[in-house]
């Protein structure tokens, strides 16, 4: 799929290992990087975005501003957007990847560059999404193009039916365990799942591909993607496509998983971690902050209470998710159980605000990284899990499976 999309959008047919210069459909810039990108454009390149309509700035990583420094950097983004006409998604609209997919700025066959490593998420809708740093992003905004080495592909086939209580997050963690944190470096992970999985579940799968080092994570279109989008024939992989590696995951035997401190590929069965006392549970992020994630958590929390010593923080991934979760009662259930809410955005995922951890604290999070110091103090510990496991853990006050929660 990667070869086909990059060939279509470059000047020639390319194969794995080739260098390609390709047109970019959207350049996505987050608030934490925007000031650097703007500085490179204005002072180094002395250029404005070639196609302003193909550039999006999303204020999500620290939103609303937590300090005067952050507020000043947001001010620079707003000034730049007003001057150049690029799209601006301001405080509260949500997390960049969720917003670009909701706004249909990422779509089948598109090439989307993001100033955030989890830009692999766009592969959920069969876009080639990849993360880059400030200079690459500034060059792409100025030229409308980027250069890439065409990646080899790793084929991941998902077979069988997922048991109750096991989710896309558990599949993704299992995939990372098998591939390891650098098992797909420079490669595109191509996930074959037939018609299974919603767009949101596909976003969880594609999002976490970067934790195996991948350049892109593509899910072959199927199921609701086909009714939501026009998928061009040239997006699909050829039947005789060449893969650097192929793995199969049998979903029918999968159990809930967790990434144990302090690497994402350090994956264990939740059942082996039961009983670890937890100070904070965080449900949200570009990995698991969608309506279906909040609904799964609410179904477990309904009629129950979060443990007295545990804090439950819930952050919807976008304003659309927030509105839908208000309308269907999901948020009421979460609040009644003792959870609390923050503004749609990245929240405490990278330890900047809205739930930073103290020394020695333990957090179970539905996010995507558990590195040392990621969410606060270097002596805090982060376990990554699905929304169902996170909700069960919040009630029990210790790492738990949904089946451990007593009847309300």
């Amino acid at each position, binding site marked *: 799929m990667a070869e086909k999309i990059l060939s279509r959008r470059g000047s020639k047919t390319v194969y794995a290992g080739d260098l390609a210069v390709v047109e970019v459909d959207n350049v996505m810039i987050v608030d934490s990087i925007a000031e650097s990108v703007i500085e490179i454009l204005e002072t180094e390149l002395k250029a404005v975005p070639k196609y302003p309509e193909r550039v999006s700035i999303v204020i999500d990583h620290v939103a609303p501003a937590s300090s005067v420094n952050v507020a000043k950097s947001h001010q620079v983004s707003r000034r730049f957007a007003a001057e150049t006409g690029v799209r601006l998604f301001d405080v509260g609209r949500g997390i960049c990847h969720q917003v670009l997919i909701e706004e249909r700025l990422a779509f089948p066959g598109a090439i989307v560059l993001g100033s955030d490593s989890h830009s692999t998420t766009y592969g959920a809708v069969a876009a080639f999404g990849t*993360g880059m*740093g400030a200079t690459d992003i500034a060059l792409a905004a100025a030229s409308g193009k980027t250069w890439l080495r065409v990646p080899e592909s790793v084929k991941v086939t998902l077979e069988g039916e997922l048991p109750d209580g096991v989710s896309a997050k558990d599949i993704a963690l299992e995939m990372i365990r098998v591939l390891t944190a650098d098992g797909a470096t420079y490669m595109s992970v191509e996930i074959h799942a037939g018609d299974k999985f919603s767009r949101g579940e596909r976003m969880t799968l594609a999002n976490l591909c970067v934790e195996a080092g991948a350049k892109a994570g593509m899910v072959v279109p199927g199921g609701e993607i086909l009714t939501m989008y026009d998928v061009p024939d040239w997006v699909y992989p050829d039947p005789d496509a060449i893969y650097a590696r192929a793995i199969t995951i049998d979903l029918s035997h999968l159990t809930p998983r967790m990434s144990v401190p302090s690497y994402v590929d350090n994956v264990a069965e939740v059942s082996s971690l039961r009983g670890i006392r937890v100070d904070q549970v965080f449900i949200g992020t570009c990995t698991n902050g969608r309506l279906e994630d909040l609904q799964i958590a609410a179904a477990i929390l309904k009629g129950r209470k979060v443990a007295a010593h545990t804090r439950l923080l819930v952050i919807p991934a976008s304003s659309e998710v927030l509105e839908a979760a208000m309308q269907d009662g999901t948020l009421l259930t979460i609040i009644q159980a003792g959870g609390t809410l923050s503004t749609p955005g990245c929240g405490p995922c990278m330890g900047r605000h809205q739930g930073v951890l103290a020394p020695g604290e333990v957090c179970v999070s539905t996010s995507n990284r558990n590195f040392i110091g990621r969410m606060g103090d270097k002596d805090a510990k982060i376990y990554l899990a699905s929304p169902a496991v996170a909700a069960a853990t919040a009630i029990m006050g210790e790492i738990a499976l949904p089946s451990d929660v007593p009847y309300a």
Partner: protein
Amino acid sequence: MARVWKFSDSINTDDILPGKYAPFMVGADVFHKYAFHHFRPEFALEVQPGDLLVGGKNWGLGSSREYAPKALKRLEIGGIIAKSFARIHYRNLLNLGIPAFDSLEIPDLLEDGEIVTYDRDAGIITRSSGEVLRLPPPPEFLREALKAGSILEYYKQFQKFPGE
């Protein structure tokens, strides 16, 4: 003279510069003082221009934050030698013009705190014993760009990408 700062496998971008010390959080003038703040708090205080960082496999995994290598550039490190690099981080190093060398053998030979002579242009490290280590040349497709200093400098000169 260059001091060797040796690190383990899987040094991630949160190790290099924790997200809470990003320039927009603490100020663009001071963020580099937090390089390896969790991991090796003495690093930013003691590192000298030209010092070499040596790592294991998958150096730079994690976030796309260019300000992590930019902090190292601000501290004027001489280069990074690792067994392998994560891809976004590798691009960031190229864009900033920080020399990055892939070598499976050299990281195991060098010791933390060792003082060596480092000739960046020739790609040669000379140890105090007189032993000479030759750093591998960059991949061919990058040499043209690296002659300009970085991909950014190349684009500024030619208004196109290498290979375009």
